[in-house]
């Protein structure tokens, strides 16, 4: 609740406002694409292929005569879905590990944290490649690949927060009067980790958008004809010189999305005074 009031009190912050506005627009596109898009994202029109920007097709048409703008709008849905599922899963598992490591300590801490070092020994994209090879191409592959890498990041962050909270007088007091471990974690420790995990989750969203788009671009993620931005760029690169709009606009959509999450993350970090 306190977190909420902090954000509410800072709505005048330009960075926060800009970030939230971009995310809000994307969310609207993802939930109500049929209200904004003028065409069906899958409707082909072979007499109208590779059209440039015009009044009828604001961002032109692709090699099957499909409306690029409509496909971009529908594409927000799949991108945001991937981001939220990936960051929520990775964040939840990571926080769980972090709480266990930080609260129990001793050998549990050592084992968990050494395990967490393994994914971080890979460059992020490479680990995604290995995960995709094991799980298979597609949306599920992307989600598992990206959430797996998020786990150690959240675990490390939460562990540090808990280590400092555990030393505080109010936690020691609660332990002294014999409160249960669950109750101590829930009532006294968890309130300390909301702010930093929220910031990390927001910044993580920005990275997941990029990795998901890159994997789809390589043909390892979302497969055509699903309107996904990275896959659209992959299809459009054949026509890079003739119809550059097929490459430019989906890339712009990715950039704006990543930019929005980065702005929001930076603003939240400043407002809540989190060191990351």
């Amino acid at each position, binding site marked *: 609740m306190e977190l909420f009031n902090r954000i509410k009190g800072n709505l005048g912050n330009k960075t926060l406002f800009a970030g939230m506005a971009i995310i809000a627009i994307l969310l609207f596109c993802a939930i109500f694409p049929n209200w904004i898009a003028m065409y069906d994202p899958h409707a082909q029109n072979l007499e109208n292929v590779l059209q440039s920007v015009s009044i009828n097709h604001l961002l032109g048409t692709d090699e099957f005569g499909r409306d690029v703008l409509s496909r971009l709008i529908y594409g927000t849905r799949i991108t945001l879905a991937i981001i939220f599922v990936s960051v929520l899963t990775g964040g939840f598992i990571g926080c769980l590990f972090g709480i266990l490591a930080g609260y129990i300590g001793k050998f549990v801490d050592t084992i968990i944290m050494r395990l967490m070092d393994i994914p971080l020994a890979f460059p992020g994209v*490479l680990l995604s*490649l290995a995960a995709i090879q094991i799980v298979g191409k597609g949306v599920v592959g992307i989600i598992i690949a990206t959430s797996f890498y998020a786990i150690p990041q959240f675990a490390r962050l939460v562990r540090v927060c808990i280590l400092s909270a555990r030393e505080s007088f109010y936690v020691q007091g609660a332990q002294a009067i014999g409160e249960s471990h669950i109750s101590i974690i829930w009532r006294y420790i968890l309130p300390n980790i909301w702010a930093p995990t929220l910031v990390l989750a927001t910044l993580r969203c920005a990275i997941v958008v990029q990795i998901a788009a*890159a994997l789809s671009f390589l043909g390892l993620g979302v497969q055509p004809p699903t309107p996904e931005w990275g896959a659209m760029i992959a299809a459009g690169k054949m026509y890079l010189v003739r119809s550059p709009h097929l490459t430019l606009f989906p890339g712009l959509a990715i950039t704006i999305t990543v930019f929005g999450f*980065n702005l929001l993350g930076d603003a939240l970090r400043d407002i809540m005074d989190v060191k990351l």
Partner: protein
Amino acid sequence: MISEIIKRILYLIPVTLAVIFITFIVIYSIPGNPAEVILDLEATKENVAALEKEMGLDQPLYVQYVIYINKLLHGNLGYSYRTRRSIAGEVRSYYPNTIILAVFALVLAVVIGGIVGILSALRPNSYLDFAFRGFSVLGISVPEFWFGFLLILFFAVFLRWFPSEGKHGISSCFLPALTLSFSAIGTIARLLRTSLLEIFHEPYIRAARAKGASNVMIVFRHALKNAMIPAITVLGFMMGRFLGGAVVVETVFNWPGMGRLAVDAILGRDIPLIQATILILALTYIIINLMVDLLYLTLDPRIRFH
């Protein structure tokens, strides 16, 4: 100091074993029996059994793991399913190209990022500084592969200064390296700017100013040495980004490196090649991080003498 170095090197052993294990289990990602997949459909039971034996698939998992490590130690990376050629040979021709690209990208990031960072720090809050800072936020938000296409459109198609793809001489290296380093340029510039601005308030800089040293002298003779340290810590992280980014950028520019080899291997379900490419890139990353750690140890006397 020496015990610290030994500790870091020893720590590599479990991490390396874990990385090898992850690439090792990739072979179990094939649905069904790997030996059957490799052989044709009309292969007899005896053929399958013989290949299983040859690949060691009839052994328990931990024995297979030991055999796998033993093969790696002898430089045997197996044979590609598709080309039937030795993977070690393929790697020898592809690996240097990836390293060339990563090193070139690092040089670009350090030089351009360094210049931008110093200029920003000398004139904080000027228009130049604002422009550079906006540019660095943009740098981390633009997807690499898309930025690559923008560079191709502008420099290769419109201006015709550089070739758009492939590897022909030094000029073909420039666009992919710039693509790789774009986000790193912003990061280095920002780090350098912050630490330079902090150092400018230190008494020894004020002493140099009082002595009458020029801005250029202060930056290069006095401030830069200390300001560089935070930037160096992120170099390892950046090389990791370059190795991972190579996967995407090499595909965009059709650059014959390990990244493209890995993507082709996955698209063609060439398991030994996938294992080898991921393993080698990950090991490279581990070694680079070790070197950065050691460099950091020698550069920062506060750590060296503790």
